[in-house]
C-alpha cells in the first residue's frame, strides 16, 4: 500500500512536522532558510510596488499631464504676479511719498511710468489719462519738467536739462532768475540780478510765475559764474535728483 500510495505516509510526516515545529525543534532548520526567503520576498514586494507605481502613472497619466500643465501655468502666473506686485509696491511707495509731499491739497496727480529718458523724458501717460501740454511733472516736491507734447498713451516731458525750457525760479536767499538747459547735461540759472545774493549750496525753487506751481525744488547751486561787467549773474545747478533713475513720476493735472 505504501509503495502505491504514499499519501498517508506523507500526511503522517506532515503531522509529525507540525508537532516538531510546535515544539521548536525545527528552528535550527528554519532560521537559515529565512535568510533566503526574506530577500526573495522583499524583491517580489519591491517589484510589485514598482509595477503598481508604474500602472498608477499610466492610469493617471492624463491627470498628471494636466497637473504638469497647470503647474507650469501657475508658475508663469506666479512670476507675472510677483513682477506685478513689485511694480505695485514701487508705485505704492511712490504714491505714499507723493501724498506725503508738502504740496497744496488742491493738487491732483496723474501717476505715470517713465518709459525712457533722453532729450525728453517719455512717460506712459497721454491724453487718455488726462495729460495735456504744459502740465507740470513732479516727483514728490521736486520739479521734473513740463509736458511738451502728448499722444494718446504717452507724453514727452521737457526737463530742466533742455535748452527749450525757461523756468522762473527763486533761490533760498530770494534771488530770482530763470532756469534753462545749458547743454551737455547741465542746468543753468540765468538772469539773476547782480545785486541778488548767490551762494554755493543754495537751493533753487520754482517761483510760481509763468503758470508753474510754487516751491518745487529744481536743484542746488554748484558753480557760480561771477562777472561784474555783465548785467546778470549766472550759476550752474546740480539737479535735485537723477532723471535717469526715475521710474515713476506724477503729472499735476489740477493746480
Amino acid at each position, binding site marked *: 500500500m505504501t509503495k502505491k500510495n504514499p499519501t498517508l505516509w*506523507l*500526511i503522517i*510526516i506532515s503531522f509529525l512536522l*507540525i508537532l516538531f*515545529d510546535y515544539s521548536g525543534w525545527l528552528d535550527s532548520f*528554519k532560521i537559515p532558510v529565512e535568510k533566503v526567503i526574506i530577500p*526573495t520576498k522583499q524583491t*517580489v*514586494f519591491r517589484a510589485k510596488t514598482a509595477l503598481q507605481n508604474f500602472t498608477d502613472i499610466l492610469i493617471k497619466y492624463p491627470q498628471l499631464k494636466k497637473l504638469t500643465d497647470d503647474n507650469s501655468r501657475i508658475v508663469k502666473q506666479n512670476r507675472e504676479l510677483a513682477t506685478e506686485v513689485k511694480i505695485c509696491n514701487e508705485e505704492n511707495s511712490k504714491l505714499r511719498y507723493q501724498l506725503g509731499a508738502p504740496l497744496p491739497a488742491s493738487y491732483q496727480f496723474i501717476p505715470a511710468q517713465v518709459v525712457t529718458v533722453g532729450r525728453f523724458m517719455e512717460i506712459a501717460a497721454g491724453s487718455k489719462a488726462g495729460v495735456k501740454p504744459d502740465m507740470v511733472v513732479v516727483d514728490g516736491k521736486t520739479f521734473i519738467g513740463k509736458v511738451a507734447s502728448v499722444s494718446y498713451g504717452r507724453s514727452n516731458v521737457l526737463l530742466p536739462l533742455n535748452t527749450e525750457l525757461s523756468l522762473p525760479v527763486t533761490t533760498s536767499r530770494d534771488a530770482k532768475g530763470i532756469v534753462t538747459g545749458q547743454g551737455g547735461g547741465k542746468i543753468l540759472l540765468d538772469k539773476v540780478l547782480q545785486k541778488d545774493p548767490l551762494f554755493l549750496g543754495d537751493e533753487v525753487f520754482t517761483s510760481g510765475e509763468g503758470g508753474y506751481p510754487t516751491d518745487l525744488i529744481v536743484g542746488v547751486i554748484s558753480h557760480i559764474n561771477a562777472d561784474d561787467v555783465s548785467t546778470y549773474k549766472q550759476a550752474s545747478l546740480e539737479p535735485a535728483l537723477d532723471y535717469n533713475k526715475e521710474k515713476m513720476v506724477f503729472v499735476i493735472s489740477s493746480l
Partner: protein
Amino acid sequence: MIRIILAIILFMGVLLESTIFPFPLTLIFFMLMAAFWDDNIALWAFIAGLALDLFSGKILGGNSVFFLAIVWISQRYRMKLHPANLYYQLIFMLLSVIIYSSLIYKSVEIWKLLGATVCYAIILAFLRGFFPQLERHGRLIVE
C-alpha cells in the same frame, strides 16, 4: 517540460500568495496540476505545502496536510474528478478554496472566488484542448 513549467507556476503561486496576494493561489495551481498529473503528486503536494508554510512563516506541515488531503480525495474519487468532468472539478475546487480560505485567511471573498472559478475553468479547458497527452490515460474514454 510541461511538468517543469507547472512546477515553476506552482512556486510562483507560493511566492505570490505569501508575499502580495493573500488568496489560495497555490492550492488552485496545485489542483490544476493534480487534475492532469498522477505521478508522485502526493510528494508534490507535500513539497508545495512545505514551501508555502516556509514562505508564509506558518507552522511547517499545515498546508502539506491540506494539500495531501486534496490528493487523497482526488485519488479516492478519481473517476468523478477527471478533468473532463468540468462541473465536478469546479465544485471540488470551489469547496476546497472556501474551506482553505476560511481556515487560513479567515475570510471568503465572493468576487475572488468567482474570478478564480472562471480562470480555473478556462485554464482547464485550455490544457485539455492543447495538451491532451497530459490527461490520465483512458479513464473516461469508455466507448
